[in-house]
């Protein structure tokens, strides 16, 4: 992990400042209170019960005032002694402590404190945190026509609930840890004990606990930080917003990571082919699903290769094209002054511009820009003689094909790796395309996901895992868990019983 040069000074300085004040003075609580009241959203007031005065304090931004008014203040009237507070208050977490560090930490997690002004050595901490999150809503990135329509939200507990209600079993384990010096983000590792490979779970936990970073704002931070090869454009962990997908792959023996504040979970170990699964594939008939998977896979290959092949053929290998086809190309290109590579790069960049503009603008404006820009720029550039009709069709199709990948991050990767292919095609023709393709293959061969090969089940070849890769065979044939995950319990169900159908006799 990279170490920031000024990181130590920043944190150590603060620690010493706080610690020093607390330790040096005889009144640790008082100095803590002074420090807390520097912030304007910290409130502190005295509350008189019988003869004693209680001091109550909290961060207004972190606690639910309703809990304070409904469940704390009324009950304080029955206050007898400090020790009895935990039985008086109708709240499960009431802690009595005197450590300033503990008080400070709890306050920041949505607790409020109560203490007797005459007795500073006992402070009561009451949990009254507020959770402000949005409702569980429709999945937007991985939308499916059939199947469940729940997606993760920004609250970790809600997300775990969404998964756990699909896996009501005690073996389903959640390991939580705190990452980030500043953000103190809760990160959970989810797996099923007895199915998931211990090595995989330990790898994930080890990598997460080794992280040394100040802020974790989203799960994509985690992907970038813990994946095996951080320089590869290919993501090596899948991010998904579908709880059903997470629950399903946990059953296959994978490990999932959920991050507080991120509406996307991470799944690993994974393979490149899993990036071409839409989870809807499992909700459709296996033949239909297999067909769509193949379509998606060939769309990706088409999207990467078609423009470079156009550039290569038109720059160097005219002879490849049969006579009838070449006349079409010649009429389309005859008025164009630019060499094929410039023509292709201009159009590819135009498409990228449209996509980027569409992604940054508000939805409604974005759509308009896409349609208007696409049609107007496309037609105009052909009429102006900057690009040929044929290339316009090819580039538009390639862009369309790159959008078929169900995982958004993979789509980005595919659009990026087109450009090296283009340049090599311009330099070495078809050989350049083949060289780039070999480079891509070797790169994919070298990649691993949590230490497991990324190109599996093609290399290393595992015939058993092919049943759910480029094609998806029926559920009755999926009785074994994939070898990729090296699960502890390899059998999912009895394949014999799965194939039998029992009808009740109709009399």
């Amino acid at each position: 992990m990279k170490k920031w040069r000024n990181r130590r000074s920043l944190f150590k300085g603060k620690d010493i400042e706080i610690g020093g004040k607390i330790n040096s003075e005889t009144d640790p609580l008082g100095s803590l209170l002074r420090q807390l009241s520097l912030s304007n959203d910290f409130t502190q007031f005295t509350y008189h019960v019988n003869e004693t005065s209680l001091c109550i304090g909290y961060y207004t931004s972190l606690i639910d005032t309703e809990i304070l008014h409904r469940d704390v203040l009324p009950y304080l009237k029955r206050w007898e002694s400090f020790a009895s507070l935990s039985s008086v208050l109708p709240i499960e977490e009431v802690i009595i402590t005197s450590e300033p560090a503990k008080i400070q930490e709890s306050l920041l997690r949505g607790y409020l404190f109560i203490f007797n002004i005459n007795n500073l050595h006992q402070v009561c901490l009451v949990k009254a945190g507020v959770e402000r999150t949005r409702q569980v809503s429709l999945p937007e990135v991985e939308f499916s026509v059939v199947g469940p329509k729940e997606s993760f939200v920004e609250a970790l507990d809600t997300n775990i609930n969404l998964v756990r209600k699909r896996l009501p079993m005690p073996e389903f384990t959640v390991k939580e840890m705190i990452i980030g010096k500043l953000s103190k983000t809760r990160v959970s590792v989810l797996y099923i004990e007895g199915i998931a490979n211990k090595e995989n779970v330990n790898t994930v936990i080890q990598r997460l606990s080794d992280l040394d970073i100040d802020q974790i704002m989203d799960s994509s931070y985690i992907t970038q930080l813990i994946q095996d090869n951080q320089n590869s454009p290919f993501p090596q962990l899948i991010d998904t917003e579908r709880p059903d997908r997470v629950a399903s792959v946990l059953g296959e023996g994978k490990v999932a990571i959920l991050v507080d504040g991120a509406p996307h979970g991470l799944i690993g170990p994974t393979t490149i082919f899993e990036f071409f699964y839409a989870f809807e594939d499992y909700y459709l008939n296996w033949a239909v699903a297999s067909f769509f998977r193949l379509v998606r896979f060939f769309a990706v290959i088409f999207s990467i290769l078609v423009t470079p092949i156009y550039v290569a053929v038109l720059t160097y290998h005219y002879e490849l094209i049969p006579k009838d086809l070449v006349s079409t190309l010649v009429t389309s290109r005859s008025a164009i002054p630019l060499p094929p590579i410039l023509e292709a790069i201009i159009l590819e960049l135009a498409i990228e511009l449209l996509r980027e503009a569409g992604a940054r603008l508000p939805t409604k404006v974005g759509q308009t820009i896409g349609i208007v820009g696409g049609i107007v720029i496309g037609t105009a550039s052909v009429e102006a003689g900057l690009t040929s009709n044929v290339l316009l069709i090819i580039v538009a199709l390639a862009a369309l094909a790159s959008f078929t990948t169900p995982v958004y991050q993979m789509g980005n990767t595919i659009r990026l790796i087109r450009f090296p292919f283009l340049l090599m095609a311009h330099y070495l023709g078809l050989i350049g395309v083949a060289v780039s393709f070999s480079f891509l293959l070797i790169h994919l061969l070298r990649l691993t996901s949590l230490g497991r090969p990324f190109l599996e089940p093609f290399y290393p070849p595992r015939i058993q895992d092919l049943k759910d890769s480029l094609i998806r065979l029926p559920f009755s044939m999926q009785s074994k868990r994939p070898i990729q995950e090296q699960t502890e319990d390899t059998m999912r169900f009895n394949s014999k019983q799965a194939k039998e159908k029992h009808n009740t006799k109709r009399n």
Partner: protein
Amino acid sequence: MEEKEFQISPFLVFFLIHSVQLGVGVFGFQRTIMKSAGNDSWMTVIGAGIAVSMIIWIMYLLLNRHQKDLIGIHRDLFGKWIGGFLSLIWIVYWLLIGIIVLRSYIEIVQVWLFPMINMITFCIILLILVYYCVTGGFRIVTGISFLGVLIPFYIFFTFLFPIEYIHFRNLLPVWNHSVKELTLATKDMLLSYLGFSTLLIYYPYLKHPKKSQKWAHLGNLLTGVIYLFILIISIGFYSENQISRHTWATLSMWKIVELPFVERFEYIGITSWILIILPNICLSVWAATKGVQTIFHIKQKKVVIVSVVILFILLGSTVAIEGRENIENLNKFMSLLGLCLVFMYIPFLTLLSFLLSKIRRGNIGKA
């Protein structure tokens, strides 16, 4: 034996053996063997295949006895210095395989695609690929061998196109050449099968080495079948006189392929061939690197430097070879060296290993 996580499944030996045998030789092996054996040369393909299978069997005999790679066996039998020297000869041989494949491929590209191509740049680009593959370790090299067999396999179906123009009568009369001519042609054919000797160095990386033997033989069988298939089609497609004028008969045959959207299929063939020659070069460079590493006890961290040095040697010698004449000469030298090393030295070494162990056992018994 290597650590488990670096080892590969035994059936991958099929691809390792096959991919390193099949290379640029496929483009032009017809002329060399038909020079002496004519229309009977299909027998030489089978004969050479059987001979190679026997050598593979002998290799396994040797390797199974020692459970070590060639370098270790040399050290056991001949001691540090002589053993090291003999190993170095093998390393040079493997490097030469890499050089000859690379140079012949570049020659084909120069003749058929880009006459004006800058050889150094092109060579560097290919060697960067090799470097990227070899530094990934043996699993990656195996991976590219595996994919290098599977992905370009479609290319062999295009040889079905010439079938409608074929005269199978060209094969007749059978057996109109003398045994001497056939033996000569078999010797020439053996060059097209070479490269499988890298088995001697990756043996410790096989998970169940004894189980892998049948896969090695099957890989050799596939090579033989492909050569036989192409040869029979070439014999039927060309006349004997014609074929003696084609340096690359296979490539010329592709000109007949015609699809609605593509003509001049040899361009696509040559392009796809990158994936076929890549395992050739990668495996031989890997074998050389591994050999140097074991002989001189170089640490894993510095292996990168070794492979860079080896690749520079490869680059230098490839660029230095100019013209058809020199390439042909190198080919001749290679086939001689290969024949000596693989077909004479390996059986000799196996015999020696058996004898030495008997003598040593006898000595122990006496003592």
